[in-house]
């Protein structure tokens, strides 16, 4: 994932230089740290946070143990990784649910940080986790904000509670809680109007809502592209509202993510979720250790596995395994597999999580691959069900029809058929081997 791309590229450059030296002196470390400091500052990490961070890394890195070790550069990188993780909160933290439902989650933040969209995404995420959420529209100021939440609600098929835009937001919040109680919703997600942290009147309104309905979680929504001001915003919201956590949005851009690194450090409040795309399922639990791995180009295999588990249903995987073993794997299955893989997210995001592939350069060609996948899909969709089951029947005339139908060339169709044949052979080899060693793994293969 190209998250923190710039910061990540800079730091990796610094460490490459470091690795090229066998022995390290204190001076080498200082020089490297100076560049780390600059990289962090350019990434919009708050100045004070950077200062503390560099001081901590230095204190640990110039010790006799590190410098005298056989792989001093590795040691230094390890220290930076640990400190980065620590800076972002160490452990990942979850939503606190009320012992007696409904739980009220209140989203607050500046204008344009993405509160309303995040409400929708959070509702979708919680529902995937088996909860029954109700959305509540308490942004009575921005034109059409309520309508926006209603549209999201209807897309997700989740009820949206509204009293229109002429009603006090505190009454709306209270009304939503009543609704939840009587209709069995266990979670209420309250959207509030965007406001500047220095707008006293609007901040008083938030405090009033809080006093009225006593939310179990107040989440501050922060745009990942925010500059040095992020700490002021977070500090003020925290002082006045007592926030419980942060949702970081728009992480799918190339923001250097300084906000992520600073907000936790200055408020002590954890980042709980990150939004990584425009689709309504693009909200993830935030994992500091994984994020710091991504920043340092170490990849993020754990997230890939989790996404795979979400995208592939276990029963389907078992059926697929059966088919593979019995050599009944058809182009139709191939297409299903392809769609499952794409469900896991855009390819460039996925590959960005693979260790060693996180660099911008490696990701350049990927837009092409995404296109290629689209092509393959179009070709298979242009085949008749019979052709999909029995590709050997596809002759020259059929190939021309398929190519015309999918907007591709006959060569493309040929290439796909050849690739499919090879895949089949490969599967046969694997399944022959695995028959001797036990069942195939739960992870479906990637074409």
């Amino acid at each position: 994932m190209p998250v923190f791309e710039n910061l990540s590229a800079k730091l990796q450059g610094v460490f490459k230089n470091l690795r090229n030296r066998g022995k390290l002196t204190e001076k080498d470390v200082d020089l490297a740290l100076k560049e780390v400091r600059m990289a962090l500052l350019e990434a919009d990490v708050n100045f004070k946070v950077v200062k503390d961070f560099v001081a901590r890394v230095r204190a640990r890195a110039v010790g006799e143990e590190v410098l005298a070790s056989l792989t001093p550069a590795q040691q230094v990188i390890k220290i930076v990784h640990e400190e980065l993780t620590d800076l972002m909160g160490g452990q990942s933290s979850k939503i606190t649910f009320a012992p007696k439902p409904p739980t009220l989650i209140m989203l607050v933040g500046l204008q344009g940080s993405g509160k309303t969209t995040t409400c929708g995404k959070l509702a979708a995420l919680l529902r995937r986790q088996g909860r029954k959420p109700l959305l509540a529209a308490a942004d009575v100021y921005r034109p059409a904000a309520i309508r926006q939440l209603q549209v999201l609600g209807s897309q997700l098929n989740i009820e949206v509670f509204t009293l229109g835009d002429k009603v006090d937001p505190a009454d709306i919040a209270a009304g939503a809680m009543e609704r939840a109680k009587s209709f069995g919703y266990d979670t209420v997600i309250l959207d509030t109007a965007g406001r500047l942290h220095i707008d006293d009147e609007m901040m008083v309104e938030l405090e009033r809502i809080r006093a009225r309905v006593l939310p179990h979680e107040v989440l501050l929504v922060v745009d990942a592209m925010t500059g040095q001001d992020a700490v002021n915003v977070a500090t003020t919201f925290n002082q006045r509202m007592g926030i419980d956590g942060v949702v970081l949005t728009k992480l799918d851009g190339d923001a250097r993510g300084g906000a992520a690194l600073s907000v936790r450090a200055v408020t002590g409040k954890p980042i709980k979720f990150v939004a990584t795309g425009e689709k309504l399922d693009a909200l993830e639990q935030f994992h500091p250790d994984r994020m710091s791995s991504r920043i340092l180009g170490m990849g993020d295999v754990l997230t890939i596995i989790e996404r795979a588990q979400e995208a592939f249903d276990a029963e389907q995987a078992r059926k697929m395994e059966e088919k593979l073993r019995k050599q009944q794997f058809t182009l139709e299955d191939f297409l299903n597999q392809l769609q499952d893989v794409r469900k896991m997210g855009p390819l460039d995001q996925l590959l960005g999580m693979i260790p060693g592939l996180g660099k911008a350069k490696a990701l350049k060609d990927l837009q092409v691959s995404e296109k290629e996948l689209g092509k393959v899909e179009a070709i298979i969709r242009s085949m008749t069900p019979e052709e999909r089951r029995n590709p050997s029947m596809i002759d020259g005339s059929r190939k021309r029809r398929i190519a015309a139908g999918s907007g591709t060339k006959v060569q493309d169709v040929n290439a796909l058929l050849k690739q499919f044949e090879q895949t089949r052979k490969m599967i046969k080899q694997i399944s022959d081997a695995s028959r001797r060693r036990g069942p195939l793994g739960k992870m479906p293969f990637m074409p």
Partner: protein
Amino acid sequence: MSPSLFSAIRAGLTKTREALIGKIEQVFTGKARIDEEALEELEAVLIQSDLGVKATESIMEALRKRAEEGQPVDSNTATGLIEEEILRILGADSLRPELAKAEQGPTVIMMVGVNGTGKTTSAGKIASMLSKGGHGVMLAAADTFRAAAIEQLEVWGRRVGAPVIKHQEGSDPAAVAFDAFEAARARGVDYLIVDTAGRLHTKSNLMEELKKIKRVLGRAGTGAPHEVLLVVDATTGQNAIAQARVFNEAVELTGIVLTKLDGTARGGIVVAICSEFGIPVKYVGVGEGVDDLRPFDPREFASSLVSH
């Protein structure tokens, strides 16, 4: 610029100025001559104003030079230098905030930017400003992606008294832009403001969509769009430079609208953008009211930023 406009921008920038000056004074308190530690502190102060590494470096260089020459560098000289440098970068004389005007037919203004910077709101405010100036204005709802974006623009249309041309949500934004242009020409309005969907500059397919909107407008009317304004949130950090770069490459920006300058954000990012691409800031948003959009004046901006 009238005194009232000046004071409005000043008010919007007060927080910025106070923070910056306060910090610079802290740095220099009790120091007749600048030392290396103080320089480093100052560097940090500038970076914290989101001024950008380049601008910061050039200012630091000038200060260091003075210090090396044995000149006393106190807080006055430092602020003076910063103001000079900002003015130089903003190119106070060559950049003009006025909007371009079509030779014939409607003048087309296209609003572009990443999500949540305030494109729709700025479109509404510009419409209000033009309409108060006696011009006929029309709005095009070419943000067909975000839920309820069309309704949001319609509310603005009613406030300002400007017709809004729209299609269904999810329809082709270029088609909306084209229809809007035809309608604007037929009805003889002076300005057509095209609101587009927020998009992250890293999504190349969405940037292609934006290029298409521009192409279609260009085919519809000579020289259209006459203005392509990038809406930048003042709270944005260095990422705004990347935004400006990519949007500029895609649709050739003619200006910037800097929004949300009434918070504690420094707005220093504008200096960095000007320094890199020479794109002028045309308007600044300094509040939530319909009239809280002001023409940008580099000179006022620079002096508001650093003067006492």
